[in-house]
């Protein structure tokens, strides 16, 4: 298995090596050591390879990932897995702001806590956070699922579109146009699958509350002006 030691190898060499790989599913494995908070580690990969990063990373780790499985054995800085298209990213520690921002697909698992604006403008990604999430999470979230085993901060789901939010703990406050919704059987099915995909077996889907858009702000109405 190729090992990239970022104490002696440049970030450019690492990312260049991870680009243009065989897309047919070779399942190659790579290891990155000594990331020491480097930014843009393992970004723009478009092949189904496994990348294991031993240590904490800075901004935008796994940005725009397509099909790769990336595991960070540490914490992640802002914007982890931003604009991910597909694949799976697992953060064993905590994640900073904007985790999974604008991402279109794939699965992001954060085993610790996620900071503010988790899932901001998400466009289809599934995010599972085992701990808590910070304020303004799922702001303008368009589609996909955000699953939180812990608590959510202020203004959850502000100006939400069609994304589904599932929170097991408390929600400090809901943002504009975000409301509690009925948990129907199809939502139980979605949660069951997501929890299994995230490797979580000790939590039941029925313990979660679903939140979504009231769709009151979808078309401008002057009488809603105080909501903005």
């Amino acid at each position, binding site marked *: 298995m190729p090992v990239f030691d970022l104490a002696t190898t440049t970030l450019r060499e690492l990312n260049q090596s991870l680009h243009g790989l065989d897309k047919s599913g070779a399942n190659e494995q790579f290891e990155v050591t000594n990331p020491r908070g480097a930014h*843009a580690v393992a970004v723009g990969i478009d092949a189904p390879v496994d990348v294991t990063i031993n240590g904490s990373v800075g901004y*935008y780790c796994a940005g725009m990932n*397509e099909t790769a499985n990336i595991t960070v054995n540490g914490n992640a800085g802002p*914007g982890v897995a931003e604009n991910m298209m597909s694949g799976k990213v697992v953060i064993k520690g905590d994640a900073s702001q904007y985790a999974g921002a604008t991402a279109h697909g794939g699965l992001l698992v954060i085993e610790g806590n996620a900071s503010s604006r988790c899932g901001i*403008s998400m466009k289809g990604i599934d995010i599972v956070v085992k701990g808590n999430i910070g304020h303004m999470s799922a702001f303008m979230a368009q589609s996909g699922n955000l699953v939180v085993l812990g608590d959510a901060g202020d203004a959850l789901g502000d100006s939400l*579109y069609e994304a589904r939010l599932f929170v097991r703990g408390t929600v400090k406050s809901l943002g504009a146009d975000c409301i509690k919704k009925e948990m129907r059987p199809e939502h139980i099915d979605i949660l069951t699958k997501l929890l299994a995909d995230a490797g979580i077996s000790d939590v039941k889907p029925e313990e979660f509350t679903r939140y979504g858009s009231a769709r009151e702000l979808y078309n401008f109405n002057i009488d809603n002006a105080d909501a903005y």
Partner: protein
Amino acid sequence: MSHKNPVTTPRKSATFDDYTMSEIRRAAATGIYDIRGSGAKRKVPHFDDLLFLGASMSRYPLEGYREKCETAVTLGTRFAKKPIELKIPITIAGMSFGSLSGPAKEALGRGATIAGTSTTTGDGGMTEEERGHSETLVYQYLPSRYGMNPRDLKRADAIEIVVGQGAKPGGGGMLLGQKISDRVAHMRNLPKGIDQRSACRHPDWTGPDDLEIKIQELREITDWEKPIFIKVGGARPYYDVALAVKAGADVIVLDGMQGGTAATQEVFIEHVGQPTLACIRPAVKALQDMGMHRKVQLIVSGGIRNGADVAKALALGADAVSIGTAALVAIGDNDPKWEEDYNALGTTAGAYDDWHEGRDPAGITTQDADLMKRVDPIAAGRRLANYLKVMTLEAQTIARACGKNHVHNLEPEDLCALNIEAAAMAGVPLAGTSWVPGQGGF
């Protein structure tokens, strides 16, 4: 015999003029602010307030029909492995598919390619029409990230990070439900028919320090091949340009308040941001102060209409200009041949700006399948190419008259201003004097 006292002529208020009163009545009736497309319509100091001095005893000109005057420009020489080479210093500004029809985007690509220049995507992603017909395509990276994906990022020729635009510095985009067709909705991953409000700032970075890291990520994803542009509205040009350089831009696009938008609030368009003329010199000074003039290229946009405007922007220090509204006019926007249809919408050719409503008689700012058939992308592309070539010839004509063998050799010393405001903004002398207002202790 009755006596009638003389009466004064009815006089309308300059403050409460006809337009203002109509807007008050409209607001009272509807309860919503006015939304429209295009840029600022108010009169502001502009390139028309500048004149070239030409050659005489102290300068000698180049022969207009014999001696070469180069127009090529290279964008992205600072860091990118693959800078963009353009034949002319006039690019096509970012305009979205969604706000514009597919045939209109195709026409822009065709015209720009014939003329040897670039076109630019907009909010909503990259369409096959424009990628397929644009030899050089700049891919905008916007706060909404609608349609943003790494495949399109990698097949773009440059990346333009949009921080702001001249029509609405500090404001986000807006695409109202009428224009959200199935295709537009799919590209943006949103339900059909809803009002799409694009964010005013990026979701995953805040400030120039973060932007520097974001640019590093984009360069790593694209293997440092693509030039990175940063587009800013005409807000605080000296500091905005300095910070864009610090963040790592290869190219800076500076858009003054006359720059157009697909749709935003009238109050925003007319009351936020600075005129294009006022933005250029502070921007150039920032580049010069940092030793980056001509190393980081500056593209100026907002109200560029003809070759004289191009030449004046270059003389003030820009490397290239960008056109949006003028390009739309060239492909048929506001054409008087649709006057009856404009009248039916309560407007007239030349004034139509309700681009957000999706009922454009010219078929350009619409997603209506029947209306967009009015745009023949091949013929419209040819018109755009013709127009770009005329502008280039005009700029060359002026440059030769000033004795320059490249349009980039034009300089502020070739200019004077017709009024004090323009002289102060452009940093050139008032005509007939050596006075540059705002300099030398005045």
